[in-house]
């Protein structure tokens, strides 16, 4: 699941997959704008077959935030 998430982030924000780690966040990413953020939410929902509600959306600002939301929805990261 970790590699799937990294692949998604790499695709949406056009960042090499090797650069996606625990420090990956909105503040450090040029292409993390409102449009790509919406694309990210749509992609996460589709790829993991989940619904992210408004409150959860507002918490998502980094790789670790996303991981936390996904784990709360029962998605297991090894």
């Amino acid at each position: 699941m970790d590699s799937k998430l990294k692949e998604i982030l790499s695709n949406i924000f056009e960042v090499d997959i090797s650069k996606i780690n625990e420090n990956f966040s909105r503040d450090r990413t040029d292409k993390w704008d409102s449009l790509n953020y919406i694309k990210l939410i749509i992609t996460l929902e589709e790829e993991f077959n989940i619904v992210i509600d408004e409150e959860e959306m507002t918490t998502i600002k980094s790789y670790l935030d996303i991981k936390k939301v996904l784990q709360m929805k029962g998605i297991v990261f090894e």
Partner: protein
Amino acid sequence: MEDTKDKIKSSLSHGDFQRGYQLILQLIKTNSTYSNYVFAERYCTAIAQNLNFRKLKVAILSSITIEPIISILHVKCCEQKINAEFFLGDYNIIDQYILDYDGELYRFKPDVLIIFLRAEERCPKLLNHYIELSKNEIEIQIQETIKEINNLLMIFKEKSNAKVILHNFEYPAYPVFGVYDSQILNGQKDNFEKLNHQLIEISHNFKDCFILDYELLISKYGKNNWFDSKLWYTSKGPISRIGFEALSNYYIRYFIPILGLTKKCIVVDLDNTLWGGIIGEDGIDGIIIGDSPKGSAYLDFQVELKKLYHKGIILAINSKNNQSDVMEVFEKKQNMKLKKENFACIKINWDDKAKNMFAISNELNIGLDSFVFFDDSPIERELIKQKIPDIKVIDIPENPFNYAQILRDLPDFEIISISEEDLKRGEMYYAQCQRKQLGESCGSLEDFYKSLQMKVKIFEDDNNVISRISQLTQKTNQFNLTTRRYSENEIANFITSSDYHVYSLSLFDKFGDNGLVGVVIVSNKNAHEWIIDEFLLSCRVIGRTVETAFFSYLIEKAKKSGIRKIIGEYIPTKKNACVRDLYKSYNFKFVKEENNITTWELFMTEAFIEFPEWISLINKNGD
């Protein structure tokens, strides 16, 4: 999947855009996730430019956030070989862009302007304060809304030649009076209908201004499925994921006719495409159309094709079959919606289908890129894809239940305006094709004869064929010079008599034995002279030069028997006009005409008729 993505990146970085393009199409087809669209979109512009796709600059002014949809729309444009470039206005700014003569919109120089209107922003009172409005106020609201839009269009059209695609208004899913709204005339929904109706009217004030029926589009998917409240409240993009795809597809339906990319002809297979089963194996009673669940699906497919025909799309057949089997289906099979006449071009043979596609393109005189190919066989589809990439090949599932829907979903036959000629195109092409076939068949007649691999066997005074000869004299009307009817006894007497000779001919070809099909009876009561008493040929084999072979043989026979002159008669009937000039064509001299009966004579010194080279004679006695 990652494999495909890596291959795409690698192909494109090596400049192999065609392969990159094919891989992208494959990626989207096998897994049309949003993430894949986002990935694919990055490469659309480079591919479209390198592969010379048709350019289309699209400006979208919208009262919602539409950006997330563009990833999908861009890829779908690329799929249709459109090189799209987009200008997106900021959320809910429409008028300002149009009014700003030096602004970004006009600097972009769009080919197409899409105006995405919503009642929420354009006429909110009609939507949310409807209950507070008097009848008169409602009318004023509608008029003002229409007037505003009309003004915007006027201003835009003064400045730009771009075509306009104008969304109509979505009807309220929950009218303020609820179910009561449906009980009254002039209810809330009625008034939205009125609004949309007037949009159509003002669109006619301008050249190239087209209405996009957004209300119809949404209703196809269901309003509650279409609307995404979370995306609306968080990003002002109220359209759900299914809407992304559906709206993109709908825009494509406009772009195709706007760019003149509408396909002109759909070429279909027959077995398991137009009907269920295989006519050559299952026979006319074995194939299915209508009645059963599968049969009904084939029938619906035919109904859809017929609609296309009436819309001016040309229908054609490309099928591996026996022509006669298929014609029998068209003539006799119950439930067939399509008639032979609905097809402008019919290729039923055992040639490879790519060859037939070239022939169809030639006969109809339309380019290969104007064709859609619909065939249930994945092998045939692959063949066409590989050999003629210009042709649009439709991938279809094995069972027929979605055939009709696949056809309805194709954007390729959209037309955006319609002329009388468009509606008659199918008919016109059918007539043209008939003429052309006639002309062509003359040119290649010899090849056709050769292809038949005909063999004839000629019998002289043979007792074994008496009954068939008698039967032919009784039945044959067209190719029959004298139409004398003889009983079996009379034939038997001719055979035994030394005053008469009875010749008969049987024909074989590559399709099998045609049986005994020709009869000539001559009398040689006068020495050195033959009088042709009977000369007939079964109508099944007319037009295959069999009579020439027969006559050529007889002349040689006559010469060998010391005959100096052959006399022929033509007795006209209502049905035998086709042989009126037969003797003349064999160099007979006209002798006389009495009671409409013409008499002809041929001296053996002048008689020579070449035996057709494409027919072989297989007489046992070695004549």
